[in-house]
């Protein structure tokens, strides 16, 4: 059993050793870190950083992301079903329609509740 996992353990060990090596190497070989205020600033693609780090985001972004997940999962289920369409037969068709009906109900609910209206 150990033999099966040996390459994996080796890789983990190499990764840890390499990381430690780089860190210690940088500490001893590299120049001293010059802690000027300019250097301690967060790097934002070279432009001046602005604003605080406690940014308030509209809950709409979150809602959109969650809805994306729901319908994304739907697609994930439909693809393998479509590939196996002939083999699954009528039971497969009926199951998929049942599943889609539930998702459609969710979509109707979402629209009716106004979750997709960006304004107001």
């Amino acid at each position, binding site marked *: 059993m150990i033999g099966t996992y040996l390459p994996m353990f080796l890789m983990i060990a190499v990764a840890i050793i390499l990381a430690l090596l780089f860190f210690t190497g940088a500490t001893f070989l590299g120049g001293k870190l010059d802690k000027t205020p300019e250097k301690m600033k967060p790097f934002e693609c070279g432009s001046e950083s602005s604003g605080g780090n406690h940014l308030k985001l509209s809950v709409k972004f979150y809602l959109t992301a969650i809805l994306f997940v729901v319908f994304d999962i739907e697609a994930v289920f439909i693809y393998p079903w479509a590939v196996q369409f002939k083999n699954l037969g009528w039971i497969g068709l009926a199951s998929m329609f049942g599943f889609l009906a539930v998702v459609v*109900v969710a979509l109707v609910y979402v629209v009716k509740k106004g979750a997709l209206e960006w304004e107001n």
Partner: protein
Amino acid sequence: MALAFILSPLLVIGAGALLLMLAEAFGPKHNRTAGLALGCTIVFGAGFAFSVGAWLYGVEDVAEKELIVPWLVIDRFSIFFDGLLCLGGAIAALLAGGYLREHEMERGEFYSLLLFSTVGAMMVASAGDALIVFLGLETMSLGAYALTAFRRTSPRSAEGALKYFLLGSFAAALLLYGFALLYGATGHTDLAGIGEAVRAGGPHKTMIIVALVLVLTGLVFKVSAVPFHMWAPDAYEGAPTPATTYMAAVVKAGAFAMLLRVMLTCFTEKGLMSWSAGWPPVLAWIAVLTMTVANLVAGQQESVKRMLAYSSIAHAGYLLVGVVAAARSMPEATSSVLFYLLTYTVSTAGAFGALILCGRKGAEAVTYEDLAGIGRRHPAAALAFSLFLVSLAGIPPTAGFFGKWFVFRAAMDSGFYLLTIIAFVNSVIGAYYYLRVLVFMYMREPAAGAPVATPMKSGYVAAALILSAVLVLILGIVPSQSLDVAIKAASIFGPPGG
């Protein structure tokens, strides 16, 4: 058709949840929640009626049920739980109908969440495959997390929900890891297949034991047994009381269905069931810890709601005694656990309901002091509360007495004398804090100038209390019929080692 009929409780609740969701979205703008509580109760009632129908129809002769094996296993056990979960859900829905309006947080999502979460619990109860167990568990829990956080403006509610969510996800992950290891060791995800492979033995003995530990931890967490109970008091206290009722009754019943099904299907190998090297002694220790810690801590609570939360943990301990006994005499002890769940569901749902009844908007009954004098000013509310507390304490002629009686007798018959004595002593300790409420209701008067609790008036809450009270009395006076049902439901588990 027969298949649709024995699946009908699940289908009815699922379809009802979708319908209710749409009804709320399409309802009149000015009064979106009109009739939702009633609708939700009707759906639960229909689910219960269909469970009874499926029970009477019988599932043994339905050949088509093999179509959905091993994903869903429809047997007497799952139909028993379908009915039980619908009953608990109906009481929670009725309580919500009164409570949410009184406290001005009536939003339609509550009822849909109740129904969706119950669908998950029913899936768990009839799951025949580890993946379905997990799927049902998550469906059930996600609903419960959202219900806990339903008091949007209350920090306590958010705190409870966050703790519940984080610890619950952690437990689910442990459970999933255990299932993954079982799959690795046996090559099966269906519970029956895992059980057979485990009984047949094999080279992966160590892996199976590690999996057993992980699965047991996840399951015990869900039934909120000590030392995995930390989330329960905060979640129960923070949640709006109907949601607490739901968690204490339905979610707990679902978790016990899962515990029984998984342990008594997967881990029935002789060595794993033995007292020297198996899971029964572990579970026995957990049961002892759960009962003792919960009872001692419950006695120190000043908040009645929190006391009832600890009481619910303590009852998980008594139930675990039955599960331990089930390792030795499977169908008999399992039936006592099922019957106990029935009595516990109606008693605890009633107790939370009575607590709801004793409070008003802005003046929820929270502490013992808040209940002072209720007995004289509002005898009906106090009488109902007393009945449920007496039942929780296990005093005849109420349901709780026979629940405890059968579990303790099953434990005695299986030879767990010490465990039974500990459980008995604990139920005597438990009586202290239940009766303390009675003392405050009947023998104390509120301190001068203290706000006086005025019970709310609500047909919904009254209906829920009457329903629970009738059931508590029926189960306490003529328990034999319901016990027969429980025995029949438990008979799907063969004698140990078989």
